[in-house]
């Protein structure tokens, strides 16, 4: 084996191509987390309702997704499902769907936890001044629950961003995949994976900074 020489120039040279991958990673993350939030809010609300069937349906979704690996979900969606349906969605779409559905299940638990974590007296006080259940939700429960949700949501967004690296198995050209491609040409695994790791770190730090800003912005006095 040849002695190893670290070459900073390799990192710089590979950067333009890796940034293109990072851009796709960011796109998948943003879309995945946005749809994931919509799914999570919906199923989280369902699960915090009193009625039997909504709870059961939401519970089934959440347990199924949380109980199976994302990698398997992705392969099933991209390689398995087409055999049944007779058509295959583009890899990028499959990836976004998988990230959304996966994040949605975890976010649903975040939403439910935030709602059920509020003191029972809040709903009672709202009801006692004549608000309907829906009005109480809208004016009293959800605004408070939303604030409680921000830190765990940020956590989930960071996890989802890192999860997008699994899209490599269905051939989406995101950051990790791009790293592999660059290495297959220049054979500089050390410099390239180091650059890839630093790029992921930049992205996750940006997300947590943004969430910290939101947290401050919506802080409740006291």
């Amino acid at each position: 084996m040849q002695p190893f020489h670290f070459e900073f120039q390799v990192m710089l040279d590979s950067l333009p191509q890796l940034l293109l991958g990072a851009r796709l990673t960011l796109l998948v993350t943003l879309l995945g987390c946005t749809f994931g939030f919509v799914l999570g809010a919906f199923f989280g609300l369902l699960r915090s309702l009193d009625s039997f069937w909504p709870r059961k349906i939401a519970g089934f979704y959440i347990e199924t997704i949380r109980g199976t690996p994302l990698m398997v979900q992705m392969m099933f969606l991209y390689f398995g499902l087409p055999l049944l349906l007779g058509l295959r969605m583009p890899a990028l779409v499959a990836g976004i769907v998988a990230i959304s559905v996966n994040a949605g299940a975890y976010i649903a638990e975040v939403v439910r936890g935030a709602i059920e974590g509020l003191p029972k007296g809040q709903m009672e006080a709202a009801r006692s001044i004549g608000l309907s259940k829906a009005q109480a939700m809208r004016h009293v429960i959800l605004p408070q629950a939303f604030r409680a949700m921000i830190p765990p949501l940020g956590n989930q967004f960071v996890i989802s961003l890192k999860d997008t690296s699994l899209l490599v198995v269905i051939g989406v050209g995101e950051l990790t995949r791009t790293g592999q491609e660059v290495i297959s040409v220049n054979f500089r695994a050390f410099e390239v994976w180091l650059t890839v790791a630093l790029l992921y770190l930049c992205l996750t730090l940006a997300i947590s900074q943004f969430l910290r800003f939101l947290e401050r912005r919506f802080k409740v006095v006291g």
Partner: protein
Amino acid sequence: MIRIQDISKSFDGKIVLEGASFSVEPGEVVVIIGPSGSGKSTLLRCINALERPEQGEVWVGGQDMAHANLDQVRTQAGMVFQQFNLFPHMTVLDNLTLGPKVVKKMTSQEAEALGKRLLDKVGLADKLTAFPAELSGGQQQRVAIARALAMEPKVMLFDEPTSALDPELIGEVLLVMQQLAEEGMTMVVVTHEMGFARQVADRVVFMDEGRIAAQGPATEMFDTPPHPRLKEFLNRVLTHGVSAD
């Protein structure tokens, strides 16, 4: 104003109310006393339909709670809780105007004028823009009273309103309640403040094991307790430093 007929309620097989009946006339101030677990709070919560009795009837303002539109009936009975339950994400004024705006469809201006008037009444006109966490317990409870009053209820229900307060803050809350009573508000108060009961109550109701064990004018109830359990209860409470004069 309020008529309760033979209501029963249990939680997880534990009987809390067992055939309790009582009524409240307009303008009357009724204080409910009794040992903890005797069903006082549950009785109060049945009046506001926060709990539904398994048996019996609850009538408020001539309406049967079992068949009424609860959101509408609830506005007739204001509730003040032991833990205040103010909305922590809203200013004091917004706490007061939420109900009038959302339920009664008042304009912001009307609701704010009403809110300011009520805060003035409970002596907190200078706290309009404060958040609940910036207030003392006594101030929070006075805001909670004003919030309930903002719905212009026909009756006010108080569920141990001073039990969560530091001793030196109890007086200011009782004063506001006494003032309300003097204005002729119909009130049902669950409390351990025997001094307040004696001074303000038209009638004292003693609850024991889910039933109304005795009731009558305060002086009668305290000076010549008509029920052995009441006598026992009063002895226990009074020797623990709660004044009954």
